[in-house]
């Protein structure tokens, strides 16, 4: 596995610099895809994958340790669970306010925005949940698959 990193210094530098430059843009783009899923192609899943890909890119360019400085294993674990929890939580919340499961319009009783607006906002909420889950899981998958489960050194 080590030989992959034995590139010439110049090549390595170019890759690292460009990745360093690209990653913030990719992340912003990912967020945009999640947030703008209502109006354009995209949504939680696609945005989540893009966000995850940015971390994967970091791991590819700088090694796994570096990517784990941006997102530690512990944070990743919390995000893993947080994503689905947001989704299911929103669903449960709807039932607590007297509606059926995932009936976002019931949340109108929580903050009166109007049932239809709440549907739109509810979709937004769950898209965030999906995004968080997908992002963290994609990173987790990459960490594990590329390190054979030890999650310390990558390719």
């Amino acid at each position, binding site marked *: 596995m080590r030989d992959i990193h034995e590139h010439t210094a110049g090549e390595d530098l170019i890759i690292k610099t460009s990745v360093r430059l690209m990653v913030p843009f990719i992340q912003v783009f990912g967020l945009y895809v999640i947030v703008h899923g209502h109006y354009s*192609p995209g949504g939680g899943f696609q945005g989540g*994958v893009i966000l995850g*890909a940015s971390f994967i890119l970091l791991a590819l360019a700088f090694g796994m340790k570096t990517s784990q400085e941006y997102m530690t294993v512990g944070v990743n674990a919390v995000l893993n669970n947080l994503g689905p929890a947001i989704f299911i939580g929103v669903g449960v919340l709807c039932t607590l306010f007297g509606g059926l499961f995932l009936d976002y319009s019931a949340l109108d009783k929580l903050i009166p925005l109007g049932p239809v607006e709440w549907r739109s906002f509810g979709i937004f909420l769950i898209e965030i949940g999906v995004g968080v889950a997908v992002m963290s899981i*994609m990173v987790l*998958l*990459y960490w594990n*698959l590329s390190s054979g489960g030890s999650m310390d050194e990558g390719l």
Partner: protein
Amino acid sequence: MIWQLDLMILTLVVICALVAINIKDLLGASVVFGIYSFLMCLLWAEMGAVDVAFTEATVGAGVSTIFFIAAILRTTRRSRD
């Protein structure tokens, strides 16, 4: 929708699929599979399924290929068929 384009991409897709399962080098196979996914993504975009195309672009051609490559580098590139 342009049927000539459609047919051309479909042919390419079939060729890619055949190559992907017949190439002896697994790394090559997964790269070809990435191309296959990308062509699929074109096909879907052309069919009006923009969301699916976007997803396939990020997943099939992107993350999925990376996973394949990661796993192949951890295991072996060799394949007898």
